[in-house]
């Protein structure tokens, strides 16, 4: 089942889960996604070893979408 998770002080939190053909669950996931993006999170879809893609909209078919905070030079 596709999941939207956010890395946070608890390790990570699952914000939403949906199935490809469940429009209601997906709409709730999109609302949660947009809420997190508005407050500064960055969404990434891991695509196996060595590859991840930054996304601006919640991809319906992605197995896992991870929300992270921005990085900066230390």
């Amino acid at each position, binding site marked *: 089942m596709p999941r939207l*998770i956010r*890395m*946070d*002080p*608890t*390790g*990570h939190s699952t914000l939403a889960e949906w199935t490809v053909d469940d429009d209601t669950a997906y709409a709730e996931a999109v609302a949660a996604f947009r809420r997190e993006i508005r407050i500064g999170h*960055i969404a*990434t879809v*891991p695509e196996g*070893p*060595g*590859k*991840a*893609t*930054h996304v601006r909209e919640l991809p319906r078919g992605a197995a896992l979408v*991870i929300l*992270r*905070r*921005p*990085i*900066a*030079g*230390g």
Partner: protein
Amino acid sequence: MEAGSLPELAGVPWRERASPALLARRGRLWTAYTVAHVVPFVCVAALLVALEPLSAPVALAALAHAWIIPELYAFRGANTAKPRRGPAHAAEPVAQGLLGDLLGHHERALQRETGLALERGALGVWLVGQQGALLVTAGGRRIHCFCVRVAEPDLPPSDRTAHLLLALREDEQGFATVANHAFSGASWRVRRRLPSAMRRALDAARARAS
């Protein structure tokens, strides 16, 4: 900003995008910088002893400077890979599980043993830590050290590494652009400043890069 590029690049528009050519140029500059520090002190030491053998203690002090200054730079580079100090984080096992899911079998075992996540990229082989990353370039002889972190004080250590790893995977050159370049030089100079567990990770990265 290019499509697919790291969003954080918007915060550093003045920086030239990292590339193999830019890293090679930075490497040459670091080498020149090191030589410029070492050679004058060595020459002064030799000249002092040649002019007056009794000035040997001063010559030794000059030689010490020639040794210490490059060592301090290598130390700064090694520090980028070292973990943050502090008490154990209660959520670390959860964060460790997520990070482990992002890594392959060998890389997961190496990360748990050393604290550094090994990642092969187009620029070389990366070792990603909690607040920085090391890049071993092709051949395994040169290393670049980057200081980069996530500005969230309460994250467990493995989440910090996962943040950097995901950003690196999104856009490797963008990641190397956003990160602050802290050091470049021979990888053995950084290796001897690392804790022994991390040396094993660096050895693995050097082997992959060779």
